């Protein structure tokens, strides 16, 4: 089974800064890490390979330094890595990104594409599902377990608010995974040494045969209208005492506020 895992390098911080002018994420000067959700995707790819054989190919789109993220995946045991990097891709929104990635995935060849459920910088959770649309294959998002792959089908559990659903779909297909699915392995020394020496091909827009008008700023219909930090909600009030007293107080307060 050929598995393509799509990963993203994100800034190593939970406090993402936004450029007020361009309204895009400020990435300069912050060390990059593999998007934590993508670590589960890499791990699941490796586990499926161990179960069913095949190859794990890792793909990322980003600036040249995104190569570090690919080397980390290689150190964990991925077989191949490809960096999709081209100035023409700068400014791509999720639609343009997912299009470009889907073209690269086609070129790589695949039975299954695995993505993390979302990236922790942009938090859109759109690129995975959009890729499936571009590829014209079925997808399941929020996968918490791959039950089995057999007879050209994959059976998975999708995490829901109140439990999980068991779904089956034909391959080729795409899944996005949640953190409940596994515990990513640490790299090994031999893996790190292999990764350090590995040649990572860099593909351009031309290499993947993408339509230049559908990538980069030009191919991105998303307009960021306003970026702001939501106001902090005022702290609530906790009523204490016997249940009956508290209930009376609550009703009083709600009436005073005109809610009831």
């Amino acid at each position, binding site marked *: 089974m050929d598995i393509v895992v799509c990963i993203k390098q994100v800034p190593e911080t939970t406090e993402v800064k936004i450029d007020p002018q361009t309204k895009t994420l400020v990435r300069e000067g912050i060390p990059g890490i593999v998007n934590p959700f993508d670590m589960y995707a890499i791990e699941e790819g490796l586990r499926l390979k161990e179960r069913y054989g095949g190859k794990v190919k890792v793909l990322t789109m980003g600036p040249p330094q995104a190569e570090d993220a690919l080397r980390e995946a290689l150190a964990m045991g991925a077989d191949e890595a490809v960096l999709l990097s081209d100035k023409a891709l700068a400014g791509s929104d999720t639609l343009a990104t997912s299009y470009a990635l889907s073209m690269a995935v086609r070129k790589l060849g695949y039975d299954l594409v695995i993505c993390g459920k979302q990236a922790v910088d942009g938090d859109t959770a759109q690129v995975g599902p959009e890729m499936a649309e571009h590829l014209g294959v079925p997808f399941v998002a929020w996968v918490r377990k791959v039950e089995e792959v057999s007879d050209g089908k994959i059976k998975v559990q999708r995490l829901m608010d109140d439990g999980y659903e068991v779904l089956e779909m034909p391959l080729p297909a795409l899944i996005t995974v949640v953190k409940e699915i596994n515990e990513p*392995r*640490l*790299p*090994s*020394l*031999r*893996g*790190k*040494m292999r990764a*350090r020496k590995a040649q990572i091909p860099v593909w351009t827009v031309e290499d993947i045969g993408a339509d230049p008008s559908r990538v980069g700023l030009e191919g991105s219909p998303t307009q960021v209208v306003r970026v702001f930090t939501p106001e902090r909600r005022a702290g609530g009030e906790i009523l204490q005492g016997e249940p009956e007293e508290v209930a009376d107080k609550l009703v009083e307060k709600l009436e005073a506020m005109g809610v009831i």
Partner: protein
Amino acid sequence: MPNYFLTEEQMMIRDLARQIAEEKVKPVRAELDEKEEFPWEIVRILAQADLFRVWVPEEYGGLGGGTLELCLATEELSRACAGVAVTYAGSALGGTPILLFGNEEQKEKYLPPLASGEKLAAFALTEPDAGSDAAAISTTAEKVEGGYVLNGTKQWITNGGEAEIYVVIAMTDKTKGARGASAFIVEKGWEGFGFGKKERKMGIRASATRELIFQDCFVPKENLLGREGMGFIVAMRTFDRTRPGIGAQSVGIAQGALDEALAYAHQRHQFGRPISSFQAIQHMLADMATQIEAARALVYYAARLIDSGEKDISKISAMAKLFASDVAMRVTTDAVQIFGGYGYMREYPVEKMMRDAKITQIYEGTNQIMRNIIAGELIKELASRR
């Protein structure tokens, strides 16, 4: 921290060991200590990360490193938990005599499973009545058709019961004293080889320390390590190589204690100020850091000298172990002092570090024996110059 001119590969080993220590060891160290539980899960993680391979030559499944590589990994693990670190380093201690004195068949058979971490090793010299006076051992190996029969009891064996491969020193000829000892490779599960009580220790409580009991245990002649009568040479040469590892363990324990003490001093307020603003605390921290750096420099130097192929290593190796372990004891004691009453409580990690540090002054030769070795070498050097 100075980088000590480490190669990229050495930094990789250090960083991966540090990552495992931070992510996998730290969260469980208090529980392992409390329950005196052998850290099998961590052993498996270390194996998967290839850390057992660092000191083993490439032809036996290793990464071809040496003493320095082993020290780097041991130091980082010790920073989080010395009990885990001694389990790791103890397997190298058991494997080192095979590496140094084993014939091709023995190396091919025993080193690859140690490199992969599939099996652990242990080294067995000490007995109830033979500690510092190692020549007083009474375990015997009687020569019989096709091999030897071992009888006797070994005591305080690190990885005892958990390891699969044991290097055991026993007397083949009691009349010859120290020259009558021989080294044998014995496997767990062989008839006549059993385990006695598991010790309940002050520190390094995650590690297993156990008695080995030999009752008419047959060891085939292929498992004699080196030649008959070489037992003490095997033991001494092994310790010469592995003592910097105890130094590295000591440096790691001390560094872990300084890390904790520094963070605590910064956050703990008394008299309306962080205690790190008081000179009394500052000077303690400065002394701790300086001693650690000096110990690390000595340990790395000793390790590098060994790896360079230098033959005369007994003195420097003993110095590294002696100095670093005394530093570990002082630094951990000061760390508890900086923590004050909290430092004495098991909720905080420094009391464990102080308990763990103590053993580094005792095992692989007490620090008194280290001084004997150093002085002996000094006098020998003087005599040879005359």
